């Protein structure tokens, strides 16, 4: 556990010192929201009808951008080799990387959320705990898969292109689930209508975090 936190802490500290990736991801998320506003005909479609999809497409795109960074910083000066030589188990290394990515993507999501309420005039207060919970559940799953794919993609020359191509199919189940839960939360539907989706999201997290932890050594070990 301590090792996991050490790996995650190293990444987060490095990010906080430069702040370039975090800031550009935030600006990117805000821009996506703005573009979405112009992609909608306000007379034909109300903001609330489109809001869940807008929110989750924005999260997904920002997360893709953010996850590219996770292993690119390890590529410079062969930093990854140093990490692999350190007495850290591969599992701890993966979970640490996952935690750092989650912090990073979570920070972007946390800033995007108020911007989203502002731009789309959606009141989130009543359903805020639910929305935050859904966000956490959905994000863990695809960030786990994204972490492993970004470790692979950086070994190629077109990492920025390969990561979305590989990861987007894996984002589909969590995104569908998250959009469904979010739209029900915003419409103040009863909990029983969301339960199936929440279960699906939780199951996805359990399966893919476990699986990715198990296969991670195959990605980094020669």
């Amino acid at each position, binding site marked *: 556990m301590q090792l996991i936190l050490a790996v995650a802490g190293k990444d987060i500290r490095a990010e906080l010192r430069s702040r370039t990736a975090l800031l550009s991801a935030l600006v990117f998320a805000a821009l996506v929201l703005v573009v979405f506003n112009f992609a909608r005909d306000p007379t034909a479609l109300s903001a609330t009808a489109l809001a869940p999809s807008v929110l989750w497409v924005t999260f997904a795109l920002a997360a893709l951008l953010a996850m590219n960074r996770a292993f690119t910083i390890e590529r410079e000066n062969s930093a990854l080799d140093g990490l692999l030589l350190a007495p850290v188990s591969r599992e701890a290394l993966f979970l640490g990387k996952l935690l750092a990515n989650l912090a990073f993507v979570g920070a972007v999501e946390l800033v995007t959320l108020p911007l989203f309420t502002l731009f789309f005039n959606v009141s989130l207060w009543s359903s805020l705990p639910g929305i935050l919970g859904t966000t956490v559940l959905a994000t863990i799953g695809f960030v786990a*898969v994204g972490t*492993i*794919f970004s470790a*692979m*993609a950086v*070994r*190629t*020359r*077109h990492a920025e292109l*390969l990561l979305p*191509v*590989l990861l*987007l*199919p*894996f984002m*589909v*189940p969590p995104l*569908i*689930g998250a959009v*469904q839960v979010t739209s029900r939360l915003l419409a103040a539907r009863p909990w029983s209508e969301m339960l*199936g*989706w929440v279960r*699906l999201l939780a*199951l*996805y997290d359990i*399966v*893919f975090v476990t*699986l*990715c932890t198990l*296969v991670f050594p*195959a*990605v980094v070990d*020669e």
Partner: protein
Amino acid sequence: MEPIDGKADRIIRRGLRLSAAAFVGLLLVYVLALGYTPVEARQGVAQKIFYLHVPAAWSALLAFSLVGVTGALYLWLQDPRLDRFAAASAEVGVAFSAVMLTTGPIWARPIWGTWWTWDARLTLTLFLFFLFVGYLALRAALHDPAERARFSAVVGILGLLLVPFIHLSVYLFRTLHPQPIVLKPSAPSLPPEMLRTLLVSTLVFTLLYAGFVTARYGLALADERRELEEGSDVG
């Protein structure tokens, strides 16, 4: 191309022979589908595409499941033959799913009245197609054979586990959001002529899969040998 290695050559030739046999079988399927099977009462001749569409889907799913299974086995046994097989299977699977994804809309247009609908099965196969195009893109972008084998095994395994999730989420999505009723044949019990033709066609497509994969496997082997030889010339 000059023969680089007898073994690779032999495998390629075996694959080509198998494929040739399957092509003859395919002609038989056409004859059976057009001459032997009755015209379906409600769908008319459009239904004939069924004898190509369903077997192609079967071969594609077979190909993709074998990519996942051989990927898992590769991580365990580290045998390069498994990786070569997985790569061949993925390529052939993409080809078969392209057949499936083109014959489907051609049938759906007159029968459903639309080229595409977000039905659970359609969505699933479309994402499978994307997934394995990504798999091949990753393979093409990597040069170290061992690394390529490990990475693609990981994608294959994760992909195999993604299938039930996509299916479940799309299924849940559709059942909770009823869409306009789509005319869909609800698994009619087939007349024996249709069933026999379908079985023959499935067999032929399986043979076609085996032939293609074998030939592709041999090509991969020849490729590896050549790279090795060129490498040793330089070094």
